[in-house]
């Protein structure tokens, strides 16, 4: 979603680069520049639209008190409509959900679930009720004809519009504040109970241990829980995690592997791919990724790979395909509409269409499998190559186009759906293969950035998981090796015991913090033990922030989302009756909330829009069906990029992980709210400006 910084602008760029460029309407050499200029032009037009819409802003300087007067009345109306009942309903609902659903979990998970229920409940109820009120704000004034009396006063339409948004936003703010205080109070109570219970249990364990009744020392985790509780907003420093897969040191250079079942991704960069359209020799990709498995399987399992094909100049030209490798690790893929990725000559006008360089991404979802990655320098060892169909256009490439050598492996991709990754311990299946290493890099780390204790140590927090494939009885242990990049010959080595889903604390000497990057390598110390970790599993401890401040930030994001929906509702109500305005607002919210889903659907469905599969001999009904589907999907795709993107607002993203929300994240959310609200209000004002009030 990185390219979608603002829907209409990005869509324009797509139209220019993908559509106009395809038919040669824009010269290939200028395509990139023209598409950027077009996008900038659309951006300027949007700004101009906002400025034209708000050209009465100058007068608003004296009218802000009038807008606030309208806002006060809107707030009073909302209050007299018993908006406070939302608070009661929310409290009742979340308490019922909390006491029925949250049972039998550990303290941290319990808190996480409580927070999720409380915050998500706020989002649902606030958006629902204030969205309805916003849609009814102006239509109800029109129905009750109070707009006639108000409109006869010296008030502009802009003040009227802003006043409604202000008033309902104030109502939202009051509700959010009330809900925040309640959430904080509830969490504090639960936290106090958890601390008390942990303290009692720890004291009991300690007493038993001291009196030699119990032979196991008291759990340090309980003492930590009793002291600090679970309401935390940690500011721990996070590094960059890399897991390179297994590395075979037998070859020179060391042979790299792509790790199955992980989010590791292999990226091959291709230059422009030439092709001609000959049915007997279609353009295609050939993969050679020999697999091997660390796990002993009763039934041989097929190894599959997920391939993503992207035209670098046009992110919308993407394809996704699942391929099954044969025993030698070979697979062939012929993309269904290769004109998006291979250059071709348009038979109608003889113009050359060239989509430019492409990227092939490969992931392997089969856990326990490893794919040997060739270096791409020779056709024989290339992991991925493309069949070249046009030797005349690119002399020297008679049969294949090879990607650039040394494909990039992304060790740990940030993904919403796959947050945990495993590193394999030593195995009996492949004797010569060492355990995998997860490497966390903290760049340019100074001693002043982390607190140093009296012994000259700083603290590393590790939150790890464990997966035992065999050797179940052995205690879970991991080997930590830490060193500064400028001084790699003096690493510090520690053997730690891994406790699943509990923070393990490790002390390291501050001498490692010399201003260069700090590397902390982690590997399993027990054969058969695979360690699970996430991108934020290894962090450097820093003083935490107050929980209430972190909660306030989350509440602010809920407020921003509500203000955006209020703006959409009020703007829709300027020219529509309230039921239709409500429908429009709901559709806007729905489309804005499923951006990611539409992206995925577009990728999958677009494979069905075959340029070739239907062929020239397909029935006209098939062509018509294809056309209708194409138009519908593209319209939907366009719409989701034009409406505000609600997926940006995620109030639970940090707080449920006990992490303090960075100010930058909050700032971006505020900025996005302004960016989305301004055009919405501008549109509403343009619609209301010349409208008759009576």
């Amino acid at each position, binding site marked *: 979603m990185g390219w979608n910084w603002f829907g209409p602008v990005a869509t324009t760029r797509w139209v220019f680069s993908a559509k106009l460029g395809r038919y040669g309407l824009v010269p290939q050499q200028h395509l990139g520049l023209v598409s950027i200029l077009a996008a900038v032009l659309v951006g300027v037009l949007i700004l101009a639209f906002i400025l034209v819409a708000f050209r009465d802003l100058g*007068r608003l300087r*004296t009218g802000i*008190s*009038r807008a*606030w*007067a309208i806002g*006060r*009345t809107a707030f*009073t*109306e909302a209050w*007299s*409509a018993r908006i406070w009942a939302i608070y009661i309903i929310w409290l009742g609902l979340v308490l019922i959900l909390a006491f029925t659903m949250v049972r039998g979990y550990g303290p941290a998970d319990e808190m996480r679930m409580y927070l999720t229920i409380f915050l998500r409940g706020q989002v649902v109820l606030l958006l629902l009720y204030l969205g309805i009120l916003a849609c009814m704000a102006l239509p109800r004034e029109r129905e*009750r*004809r*109070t*707009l*006639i*009396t*108000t*409109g*006869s*006063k*010296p*008030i*502009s339409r802009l003040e009227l519009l802003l006043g409604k948004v202000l008033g309902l936003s104030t109502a939202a703010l009051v509700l959010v504040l009330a809900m925040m205080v309640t959430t904080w109070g509830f969490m504090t109570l639960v936290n106090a109970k958890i601390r008390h219970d942990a303290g009692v249990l720890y004291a009991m364990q300690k007493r038993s241990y001291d009196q030699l009744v119990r032979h196991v020392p008291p759990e340090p985790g309980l003492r930590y829980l009793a002291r600090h509780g679970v309401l935390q907003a940690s500011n721990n420093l996070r590094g960059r995690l890399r897991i390179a897969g297994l590395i075979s040191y037998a070859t020179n250079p060391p042979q790299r592997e792509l790790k199955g079942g992980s989010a590791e991704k292999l990226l091959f960069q291709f230059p422009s791919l030439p092709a001609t359209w000959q049915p007997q020799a279609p353009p295609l990709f050939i993969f050679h990724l020999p697999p091997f498995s660390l796990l002993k399987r009763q039934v041989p399992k097929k190894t599959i790979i997920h391939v993503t094909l992207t035209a670098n100049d046009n992110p919308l030209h993407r394809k996704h395909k699942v391929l099954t490798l044969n025993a030698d690790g070979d697979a062939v893929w012929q993309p269904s509409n290769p004109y998006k990725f291979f250059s071709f000559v348009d038979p109608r006008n003889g113009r050359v269409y060239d989509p430019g360089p492409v990227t092939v991404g490969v992931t392997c979802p089969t856990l326990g499998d490893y794919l040997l990655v060739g270096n791409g320098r020779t056709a024989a060892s290339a992991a991925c190559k493309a069949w070249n169909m046009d030797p005349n256009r690119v002399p020297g490439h008679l049969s294949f186009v090879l990607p650039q050598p040394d494909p990039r492996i992304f060790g740990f991709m940030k993904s919403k759906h796959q947050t945990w990754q495993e590193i394999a311990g030593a195995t009996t299946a492949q004797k010569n293969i060492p355990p995998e290493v997860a490497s966390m890099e903290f760049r340019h780390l100074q001693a002043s950035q982390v607190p140093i204790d009296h012994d000259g140590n700083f603290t590393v927090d590790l939150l790890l998981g464990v997966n035992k494939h065999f050797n179940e009885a052995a205690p879970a242990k991991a080997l930590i090796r830490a060193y500064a990049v400028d001084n790699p010959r003096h690493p510090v080595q520690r053997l730690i015991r891994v406790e699943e889903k509990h923070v393990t604390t490790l002390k390291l000497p501050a001498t490692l913090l010399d201003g260069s990057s700090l590397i902390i390598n982690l590997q399993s110390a027990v054969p058969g033990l695979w360690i699970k970790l996430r991108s934020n599993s290894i962090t450097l401890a820093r003083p935490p922030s107050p929980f209430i401040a972190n909660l306030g930030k989350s509440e602010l994001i809920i407020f921003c989302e509500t203000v955006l929906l209020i703006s959409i509702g009020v703007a829709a109500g300027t020219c529509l009756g309230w039921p239709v305005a409500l429908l429009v607002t709901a559709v806007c919210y729905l489309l804005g909330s499923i951006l990611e889903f539409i992206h995925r659907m577009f990728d999958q469905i677009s494979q069905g829009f075959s340029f070739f599969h239907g062929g020239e001999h397909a029935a006209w009904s098939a062509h018509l069906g294809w056309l209708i589907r194409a138009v519908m999907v593209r319209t939907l795709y366009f719409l989701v990029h034009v409406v505000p993107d609600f997926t940006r607002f995620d109030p639970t993203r940090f707080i449920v992980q006990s992490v303090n929300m960075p100010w930058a994240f909050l700032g971006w959310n505020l900025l996005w709210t302004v960016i989305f609200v301004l055009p919405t209000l501008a549109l509403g004002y343009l619609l209301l400006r*010349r409208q*008759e*009030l*009576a």
Partner: protein
Amino acid sequence: MVAPAQAIQTRQLTKIYPGFWKSQKVPALLQLNLQVQQGEIFGLLGPNGSGKTTTIKLLLGLINPTAGEAQVMGRPAGDQETRRRIGYLPEESYLYRFLNARQTLDFYGRLFNMNRVQRRRAVDYYLDFVGLDPAVRGRRIGTYSKGQTRRVALAQALLNNPDLIIMDEPTSGLDPVGILEIKNMILRLKQAGKTVLLSTHQLADVEDVCDRLVILYRGRVEMSGALSDLLERRDVFQLEARQVSPELQERLVALTRESGATDVQIIRPRARLEDLFKRLVDAKRQTERAGK
């Protein structure tokens, strides 16, 4: 002699409401030429659907004209600054039911950018002025009687001390005492130099207070002019006197007939029911006050 400034001037003002798709358009006002002098009370008469309210909405800029133009206090109709000098009383009291009388006037005071002190003074003054019972001022307007709501609506129209007051059916929903008070108030406004545009069905109201009037029918002007010119019967003579004996009456009739006059008759004038009702209610109120 300098001609008085125009408070309202319209030129070929036309409003045709568009129909849905190709259905018939509705002509509400056709080529209205109107001139209202500053400081006069001008009556806008006509049956239902004649275009009175449409004219007012056009003057306030609440709706847009199809053709023609209108100027109010020397500026285009609907101008935001002009609306500072206008007070408008709609035909129904379109007020927020969830606010009380004080909050309502405070809200409209804010729209005129009045400060807190000005608002407080104006609210108290005009609520007293329209005679709203102090006991109900803190109650929500939704609980008011029609007459009480009307008084609040009237107060909001006067709140900004306007130069031009546009009143659409000002007496609707009021009791006879209230009607009389409104009429007296309109006359007092005239004395204060204000211009009043009065739109009503109540012909008696117009007759009592208006200087000039226009009669509309189906959006067109049917008649206009000064009230005295329009209503004066120049061929009829009326003599009014008290304590005239029957003999003298007969002699007067005979004398009149002998002089060639026709349709001679003696009419005993009756007191107006409005005056009678007011006297009665005033007397009862005084008794109640004395009792308290």
